[in-house]
């Protein structure tokens, strides 16, 4: 629309120039050909001034009637356009600021949340690590305790078995010695001693 107004303004100017050139060709030539001297040099030439004034008035009227409104309209529209643009720019700026503020806020929230998550994760990690460490330590202590108990039991069993074997072997050796080495008379002496040392036949 602004482009259209400019085009109209340009058309009006061209029409005015054509009228002044084509309407008063004699004044133009006359002005180019006059040669005054003295005071007449600085005084207005009526022959030239009146047509020029008329032409000016005509031009002014044409311009006032057709040019100025268009120009004013263009200016007005231009002003509105600029105002709207400024308004839109302001709105956009405010919107941008709001969005930026929101974005900053969201960013801050996100950072805060991320920090919290990291802190929480760190805390959880620490707790988990401590728990795992404690559990591992406890399990290792239990394993060591069980292993010690098992070793102790094995040791005890081995000692018992060994001492049992020693007892068996001792008794077996004694049996062999008694079986092989004692004479009948020695057996009878043992019998005599045992009969004397034996308990009573009384049932009570």
């Amino acid at each position, binding site marked *: 629309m602004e482009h259209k107004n400019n085009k109209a303004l340009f058309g009006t100017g061209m029409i005015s120039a054509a009228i002044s050139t084509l309407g008063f060709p004699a004044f133009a030539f006359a002005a180019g050909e006059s040669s005054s001297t003295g005071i007449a040099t600085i005084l207005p030439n009526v022959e030239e001034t009146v047509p020029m004034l008329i032409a000016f008035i005509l031009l002014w009227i044409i311009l006032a009637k057709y040019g100025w409104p268009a120009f004013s309209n263009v200016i007005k529209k231009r002003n509105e356009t600029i105002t709207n643009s400024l308004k839109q720019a302001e709105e956009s700026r405010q919107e941008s600021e709001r969005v930026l503020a929101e974005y900053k806020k969201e960013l801050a929230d996100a950072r805060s949340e991320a920090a919290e998550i990291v802190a929480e994760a760190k805390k959880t990690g620490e707790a988990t690590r401590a728990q795992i460490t404690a559990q591992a330590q406890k399990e290792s202590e239990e394993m060591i305790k069980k292993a010690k108990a098992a070793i102790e039991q094995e040791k*005890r069993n081995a*000692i018992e078995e060994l001492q*049992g074997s020693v007892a*068996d072997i001792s008794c077996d050796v004694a*049996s062999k010695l008694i079986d092989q080495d*004692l004479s009948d008379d020695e057996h009878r002496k043992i019998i005599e001693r045992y*009969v004397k*040392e034996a308990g009573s036949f009384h*049932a009570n």
Partner: protein
Amino acid sequence: MPTNRHIAKAEVDVYAGTLLDALNNNGGMDAVLEGREQYHDVMMFYISHDAFKALFQGADKTPDMRKKRMEEVMSNAHVRPEVSTILGVLAEKDSLAAMPRIYRAFNSLLASKFNTYIVDVTTRVPLDDHLREIIKNKVSADLGGNAILYETVDPHMLGGIIMSANDKRIDASLDTMLNQARSALKKTNDMEVNARG
């Protein structure tokens, strides 16, 4: 009022008394000792041999069959007739399981009636007279009667002596003593190990 236990004991005493009187009447103390020994051998054989038991068990064997079979076996084994008769009656009445109780009652009757105790003595080596005298003196001192020794030599025994009289057994064998020593040693060792643990 007599109970089943009293009746059974009375029956056992009747069998034991009958056997003792029959043996004593037919041969005095020698017959008593011989009959006792034979009765003991049959009893032990019956206890330890299922095939012998089976001869007298089963619904297909009548009391008369059992009695005749027992008397036949005893006759072949040259057992005294008094013992054979008693065992025949026990087989007839299906009461052979009562033999050990009758044996104990027999010994008790022998002690009470004749003031004589049969002492079963088991040793590794045969007794000499000195040992017999010592054992008899001990029995007399403990029980207040005469002692008749029934000697058994067991070469598998390690040493010492085992005596049984008046339903009491005195085990003074080296085998038993060594086993006791073995147990005591092991027990002491266990206690020491537990004390260390």
